[in-house]
């Protein structure tokens, strides 16, 4: 299977390639240069793998939640490549990518992923390890004030993402003391490479969609002041 993944939802800008048994990846941190960086990164990685877009089986897009503009950069690029290559798109959540990376890198099986949503809110998703070493969402991903997050599972949990950096104390207080919660010491950001295993499974389950149907998941939909 050949999958190209990309994500520009947060301060991280990353792409990754699954080329049968081999994997490639690129990742940089940037505040606002995702548009300038992402295609050159993809181009260089594809050249290293000696692969053309037309040889892909699907494009994996980090669909959010995250920065609105960032989501549309990833979506626009994924749509352009997938349309031209005549392949479908597999949208993968940025919170799921955080959770999957915590399992991959640290063996965490119950992950509380939080991305700073600004305006006093966090994007929030609770993940537990499911079948085939894949993290699975409990309940729904939401955007809410850090004071109102709730735990759905009882096992010891691990907090990841920029939401924890911004609201560590508030989040811990909201979650209570019943469950042991540890928090990453260095903030991690969604990475395209962590989307690949989730995307490969989704692809096999037939969850890839036609390029024009792959759209950002903003979560925050109240964008007009006073409406």
């Amino acid at each position, binding site marked *: 299977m050949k999958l190209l993944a990309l994500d520009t939802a947060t301060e991280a800008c990353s792409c990754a390639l699954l080329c049968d048994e081999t994997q490639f990846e690129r990742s940089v941190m940037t505040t606002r240069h995702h548009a300038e960086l*992402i295609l050159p990164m993809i181009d260089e990685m594809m050249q290293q793998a000696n692969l053309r877009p037309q040889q892909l089986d699907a494009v994996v897009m980090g669909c959010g939640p995250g920065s609105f503009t960032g989501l549309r950069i990833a979506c626009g690029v994924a749509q352009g490549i997938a349309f031209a290559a005549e392949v479908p798109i597999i949208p993968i959540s940025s919170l799921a990518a955080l959770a999957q990376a915590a399992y991959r890198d640290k063996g965490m099986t119950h992950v509380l992923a939080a991305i700073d949503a600004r305006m006093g809110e966090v994007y929030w998703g609770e993940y537990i390890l499911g079948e085939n070493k894949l993290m699975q969402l409990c309940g729904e991903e939401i955007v809410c004030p850090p004071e109102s997050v709730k735990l759905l599972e009882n096992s010891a949990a691990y907090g990841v993402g920029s939401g924890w950096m911004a609201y560590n104390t508030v989040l811990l207080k909201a979650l209570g003391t019943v469950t042991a919660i540890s928090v990453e010491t260095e903030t991690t950001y969604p990475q395209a490479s962590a989307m690949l295993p989730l995307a490969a499974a989704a692809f096999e389950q037939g969850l890839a969609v036609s390029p024009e149907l792959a759209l950002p998941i903003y979560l925050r939909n109240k964008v007009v002041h006073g409406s």
Partner: protein
Amino acid sequence: MRVLGIETSCDETGVAVYDLEQGLLGHCLYSQVELHAQYGGVVPELASRDHIRKILPLVREVLTTTATTPQQLDGIAYTAGPGLVGALLVGAAVGRSLAWSYDVPAIGVHHLEGHLLAAMLEDPAPKFPFLSLLVSGGHTQLIKVLGLGQYQILGESVDDAAGEAFDKTAKLLGLGYPGGAVLANLATHGDPKRFTFPRPMVNRQGLDFSFSGLKTQVMTTWKAQASQDEQTRADVARAFEDAVVDTLVIKCRRALQQTHLTRLVIAGGVGANQRLRQQLSALANSLKVKVFYPRPEFCTDNGAMIAYAGCCRLAAGERASLGFNATPRWALHNLQIPRTATK
């Protein structure tokens, strides 16, 4: 050479295919006007969200209706600025990555260069050099156009653009947003003699414009009316339109006389205005100058003008880099004649 053009600078998603030998092959447009009307102005975040929903379906539609295969495409053009940054980025992201995937060059087009060159899509097309009157929602400029990328601004609005004045006046007359075309329509039923508004800045030397005072005059007059009936509304609309059109015509005359240019080319949304077209044609006749208009649908934002301008620059060897970007503020006079990329 065949180029796909994408326009997403504001509230219309436009896509077109232009062929250097065969001309414009097809174009389509999705307007978000209704979406924003309820807010009385364009909401940038909503505009961006709509562009990303509509862009690929339009690309697919245009490629299908023009029977263009990927192998026939020699380049992709997208609007790179000026405009709303989030909206521009959608077109740039899709356009730049389509080009990368098809392994053809891309070009980021200046939106106003697109407007300026829109009349080139008509038959007969103007030849360089010409005087351009650019009258859009965001711009009012008189430009000496010597060639592709050679634009000398002779005069411009010091405050509101002509289209902005139309829209603001329409709003205060209760005609909704954006009401420029509605106001123009209403004005056709108006009595031109009942009210008269001053022609701003015509007594001043030079080729600059000012339209913000006019809007205030209209407001004062409108509020003073004991009966704000339909006829009065039409009469005020007519007087406003006459004042704007007259001002534009007077400055065009002055610019043509100063520059000795023999071609006048209209560009931008207000260029769709019928009375403006009549008056400019009369002016051109009296000065023995030829006047060129884009068809009304190419006066307002569209993909065809971007495909055309992009095709010209690509044909001249200009190339966008692989990293894309949007330039929300970008002065027309900063444009250059096409520079051939080193790679």
